């Protein structure tokens, strides 16, 4: 590639079930201004904007970036809209990084948002499609059978999902921006109502309003801050919806996407060479599933890492230090929040949920029926 790319500014809104105090332009502007301030920049410094959000139907505005151009000071600049399902926040950051690495622009503002309180995402996700059986189940109904399949294959301890939920909610208590601040016990999680067996209510992510923004810059401008996060590897991978050869429990697209970013970043053993990870876990059981898919555990062993507490802050491989999607889920922004939280860790700006001495971190997002993946590796070293 022509240029090195670094994250030099990060901003996010306080996430809540409903940010009635902010319009959609207000929401994206709030995150963008925080990122600009963090990068010691103003709107004028930005060459280009890359924005992502999940389906436009969540807010009822078609191609909202056209309207949001005014709030983002985009007039006279390029503004580019990415949409790749749940992975969109990650894919958007990858496009922004490529604009810099390819030498097209030098300072790019990238952001992602969702204002879920404007609509009902669960039903927006379950439309009646001609000639297809209507799912009428939202994402949980889709993923529950995959989780059951994982439990059977791995002979996983049935409490694993509850352990992840308790851990992520404890992490979320350390993150003032998180939507959910729940001091939940294991018994409380396990006692919550069963929604889609084996997914209990407290093992699901919330619906949130929120936005996140990052300023990415070329090497020439990275010196504006003393702690840039260097982008060492990026990838997006996709597999089909209908294909008999798919393994949705351990998707090939996820494995391949991880291999891409590890190869590009020169990582051979993710467990040893990565210090922490922010991974898209919308239902608690996806932690052990992705531990295996991303090569942090052998197949069938991921749940043991969770049960042994290795994924807690202070453990061998902290995952979702911010509380993750389990605490905050503005869908279109959830992927970029993972990418941004990974960058915060290696910049050393994650405050109460900082992993001591984190130098290399993974940001991960996925979407569709476990078929769209986006990842990046960031490092404190160039």
């Amino acid at each position, binding site marked *: 590639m022509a240029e090195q790319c670094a994250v030099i500014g990060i901003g996010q809104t306080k996430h809540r079930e409903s940010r009635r105090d902010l319009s959609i332009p207000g929401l994206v502007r709030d995150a963008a201004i925080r990122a600009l301030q963090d990068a010691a920049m103003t709107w004028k410094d930005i060459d280009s904007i890359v924005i992502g959000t999940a389906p436009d139907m969540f807010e009822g505005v078609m191609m909202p970036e*056209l309207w949001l151009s005014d709030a983002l000071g985009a007039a006279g600049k*390029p503004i580019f809209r*990415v949409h*790749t399902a749940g992975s969109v926040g990650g894919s958007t950051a990858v*496009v922004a990084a490529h604009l810099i*690495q390819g030498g097209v622009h030098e300072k790019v503002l990238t952001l992602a948002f969702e204002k879920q309180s404007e609509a009902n995402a669960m039903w927006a996700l379950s*439309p009646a499609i001609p000639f297809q059986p209507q799912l009428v189940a939202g994402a949980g109904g889709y993923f529950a059978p995959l989780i059951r399949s994982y439990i059977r294959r791995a002979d996983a301890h049935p409490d694993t999902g509850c352990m992840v939920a308790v851990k992520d909610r404890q992490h979320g208590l350390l993150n003032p921006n998180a939507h959910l601040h729940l001091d939940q016990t294991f018994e409380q999680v396990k006692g919550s109502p069963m929604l889609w067996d084996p997914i209990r209510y407290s093992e699901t992510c919330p619906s949130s309003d929120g936005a996140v923004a990052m300023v990415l810059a070329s090497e020439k401008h990275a010196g504006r801050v003393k702690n840039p996060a260097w982008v060492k590897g990026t990838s997006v991978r996709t597999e089909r919806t209908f*294909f008999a050869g798919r393994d949705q429990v351990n998707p090939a697209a996820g494995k391949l*996407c991880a291999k891409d970013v590890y190869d590009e970043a020169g990582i051979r053993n993710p467990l040893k060479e990565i210090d922490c990870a922010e991974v898209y876990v919308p239902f608690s059981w996806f932690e052990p599933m992705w531990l295996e898919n991303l090569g942090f555990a052998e197949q069938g062993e991921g749940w043991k890492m969770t049960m042994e507490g290795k994924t807690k802050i202070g453990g061998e491989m902290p995952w979702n230090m911010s509380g993750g999607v389990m605490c905050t889920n503005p869908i279109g922004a959830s992927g970029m929040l993972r990418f941004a939280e990974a960058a915060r860790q290696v910049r050393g700006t994650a405050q109460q949920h900082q992993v001591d001495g984190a130098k290399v971190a993974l940001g991960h997002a996925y979407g569709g029926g476990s078929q*769209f993946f986006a990842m990046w590796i960031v490092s404190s070293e160039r």
Partner: protein
Amino acid sequence: MRDVAIVSFSQLPSVKVIDATDEAELVQPVTSDAMEQVDLTQDDIGFTCSGSTDYLPGRPFSFVAAVDGLKAWPPIRESHVEMDGAFALYEAWVRLMHGDIDTALVFSFGKSSLGPVPDILNLQNDPYYVQPLGLDSISAAALQAQAMIDAGKASERDFAEVAARSRKNAIGNPNAHIKGEFSVDEMLEEPYISSPLRKSFCPPVSDSAAAIVLAVGDRARKLVKRPAWIRGIDHRTEAHALGQRDLTTSPSSTLAAERAGLGQRSVDLAELHAPFAHQEIILREAMGLGDDVNINPSGGALAANSLMTAGLIRFGEAASRILSGDAGRALAHTSNGVCLQHNLVAILEGE
């Protein structure tokens, strides 16, 4: 910067309705054809990117189904933009700058026949202050056309002449939706749809799909005799609110053309994405395209207008005239948003 070229182009004929086809069935014929033209398969493609919008089929994540029109196995490097396919081409061009891959497949699909397009496009407006007014896309364009007349920049006869020329050009285009010899005087007798726009000054609403293959440097030279090199490509936006813009000009097109390297040298032809007749006049002035430039030899969007593909088809039509040796230097343009808010321009050249 690496040299990137368009090496093949395929489209479905733009028609009023393509019956009984889902996303995969729209995408498969054009992507296969574009790859077959240069003897490639999906396995040879480094990056795939598409453009479409959920609001045409009226369901979220409609692009997900389109992936099933591809051989996306083993899993492919793939992305999607909620914009015209020409912007997917832009993302693919950026991706090719990374240096690790040499080919890309770009496609888009638009089944406009599924809903009332002018009303759907009102959803692009500010949801608090403008959407409730019901500003459909024809009414918005009519405001712009009236502003042209008020500013003394064009007359209704000028609009009619653009429409007549476009549809005459389309006679030679087997993929065009509306074509033929139309009388300017008869057009001016048509009733207004939304004053000063008459039916002939407005685009048809078409269904179609299109695909383009991009390749880098020597890889492109091996695939075709005369690649259509993308010498420069840039896009710019403007303020969203109509009241904040001079609707008779297009400063974002001026800037994008300048940054794409249009420069003082003229082009042989320009494929402009101007769905409404008056918009061609605005774009020509904004980019300084004189009478020596062949504007929309394909007939342009006034002859075939499938949403989300009409822009990518402009790139394909411009490139195919370079690939065939008929043109040396061409401009390809795509617009996005109400009244030309956002514009993408590329300069294409033969070797």
